[in-house]
């Protein structure tokens, strides 16, 4: 992507320093550590547990893919990470500090470090603000980041260039951009504060194929050059497989599998993961899925009424009595790649060769 590289020297410099800092500390402690986060909505009989003891870890410059059925709590987790929602229990540690304990200046400082790219580029940009205003919006609050109007103008141009837009686009309004271009504005806005972590909540699912490719390219380019870490939420498995270093699979508010991307995709341990993989249609007509598709029975249980024991048992092809009574243990399997382990929450994790999706 030569033209992104051709962005101004300033951003190059900041990018370089961020990247080197990230590598230096990466081993020391994870950028993000979420443990036991629980979040529920409503009350009484209408109480809905959206997140139930979720743990995730993310190193600097890493990309974590988050997949799972609709309504399993991915977006809620993202909102917790962004501090938009306060968890009922559990801890969030960002670079060692708990963002929910922060106040005033410190809170603002933390806000600079975590940003979000939203699923819907149409809804997440205020249609009445120009691209420049949108990108500069964070600076209205963080006045010290780019103090002078001149510098802001310059920085907007840099950011536009960084995401592959032109200077002249600065004065256009979102309505005049295509979906892909809008999503780039969203990314540029997320970058305006030089964050360490960007949470992407389904950033490409509203876009069609060719645009999706453009946006994915911008994201991976930035990771390489600026060392940004991503939490990447998607239910398009091929996209996750393409972009993520690790994958976390969620089901009904719980993390049920976690591991390196290749591991999880090639040797899923949890029956749900495996079913998920098999359900995804593949392009290659020779490998039609009809024969090997694991058909899940029944509907996702209501989040108001989560099944006892293993929450997947109602639809699991391998469910046994044990699954009804006992919550499943965390099964860990030795790793193949250099870092991390491959864990699954299951009484009867699938074997290595067994029902692997074998992509």
């Amino acid at each position, binding site marked *: 992507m030569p033209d992104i590289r051709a962005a101004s020297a300033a951003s190059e410099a900041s990018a370089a320093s961020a990247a080197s800092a990230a590598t230096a500390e990466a081993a020391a402690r994870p950028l993000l550590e979420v443990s036991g986060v629980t979040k529920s909505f409503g009350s009484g009989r209408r109480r809905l547990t959206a997140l139930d003891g979720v743990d995730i870890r993310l190193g600097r410059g890493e990309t974590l893919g988050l997949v799972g059925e609709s309504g399993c709590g991915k977006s809620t987790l993202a909102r917790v990470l962004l501090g938009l929602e306060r968890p009922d229990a559990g801890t969030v540690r960002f670079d060692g500090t708990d963002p929910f304990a922060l106040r005033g200046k410190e809170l603002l400082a933390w806000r600079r470090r975590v940003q979000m790219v939203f699923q819907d580029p149409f809804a997440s940009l205020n249609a009445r603000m120009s691209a420049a205003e949108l990108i500069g919006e964070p600076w209205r609050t963080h006045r010290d980041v780019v103090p002078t109007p001149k510098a802001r103008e310059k920085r907007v141009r840099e950011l536009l260039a960084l995401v592959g837009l032109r200077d002249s686009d600065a004065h256009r309004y979102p309505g005049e951009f295509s979906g892909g271009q809008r999503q780039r504005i969203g990314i540029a806005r997320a970058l305006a504060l030089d964050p360490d972590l960007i949470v992407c909540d389904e950033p490409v699912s509203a876009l069609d194929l*060719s645009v999706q490719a453009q946006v994915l390219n911008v994201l991976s380019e930035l990771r390489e050059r600026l060392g940004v870490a991503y939490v990447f939420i998607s239910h398009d498995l091929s996209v996750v497989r393409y972009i993520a270093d690790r994958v976390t699979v969620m089901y009904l508010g719980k993390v049920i599998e976690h591991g390196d991307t290749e591991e999880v995709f090639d040797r899923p341990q949890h029956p749900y993961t495996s079913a998920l993989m098999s359900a995804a249609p593949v392009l290659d007509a020779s490998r039609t899925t009809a024969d090997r598709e694991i058909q899940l029975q029944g509907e996702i249980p209501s989040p108001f009424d989560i099944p006892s024991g293993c929450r997947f048992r109602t639809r699991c092809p391998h469910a046994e009595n044990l699954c009804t009574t006992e919550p499943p243990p965390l099964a860990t399997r030795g790793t193949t790649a250099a870092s991390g382990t491959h864990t699954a929450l299951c009484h009867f994790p699938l074997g290595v060769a067994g029902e692997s999706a074998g992509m």
Partner: protein
Amino acid sequence: MTRTAAPAPTGTDDPALDVEGLCVDLSTPLGTVRAVDGVSFSVRRGRTLALLGESGCGKSMTALSVVGLLDPAARVTGGAVRVRGSDTLRLSPAERRKLAGPVLSIVFQDALTALNPVQPVGRQIGEAFRIHRGLSRREAREKAIELMTRVGIPEPRERARSYPHQFSGGMRQRLLIAMAVALDPDVLIADEPTTALDVTVQAQIMRLLRDIQNERDMALVLITHDLAVVAQRADDVVIMYAGTVVEKGPVRDVFSAPRHPYTQGLLDSVPEHAVRGRPLPAVPGSPPELSAVPPGCAFQDRCPLVRERCVRERPVLRPAGEGRTTACHFAEELTHA
């Protein structure tokens, strides 16, 4: 035309739906533009035709004009839509209403809003029977329950009294399908029936559609921009770009050997084929605004093969192999690439 319950005999070569040279004009801020420009395709009973293309290329518009549900801002300015031997575009509204349901039917994408939020779903599903068969409320309800059973809604008798918001997205989509196939239409158009759903649900829906299609021997027009779905589900594919058809043919052939650079680009940008860490080979740019489709080839701005001829001359659909057509001046180059 009066409805006859018996479906036309299968196996005839008469297409169940034959669209020919369909043109749709759209009034926009910049004047009238042609949103659908000479689209032709036909589909026989029991077969599935996929309409594929980028967002905004006119797929839905084509579908809506076939069923006669266009917005007032749009109107059909040319072409013919033939079902059961008559051109629906030339029928009066009342005659057209007689076709809607028993002959032509459509499933919309957005299951969240496509069901009437204030009516019990049973009533909505049974409505077609009340309109076309004059059944009583109770009979229509029984029919609705049957249909709900068919599409796999558990406890259909109780659920028939529920309202749409009490169903999950996937269930709602199934209800929409039930509604659309209620009267065994000859042709079912499914406009992005799974876009909003996640993979496991999507798989369920596609399976359901396939089963129902086989069972009732319908012609299915499947609109989507998901290549994988097309690859797995369709017999034939029509690829649209900026309101025109750029390539047409059996799915297997088209996907294995695209004869249009746009088809090629689409296939390339699928992440499934990509190597991690390497940039995806995306089709650069975005499609032309409808008000400014350039003279010559509509794809010229984004085409890697663009030549001077493409700017001057609009390529027409030409045969390119058996059962295949393409609209590219340089289709051969792709073939041999």
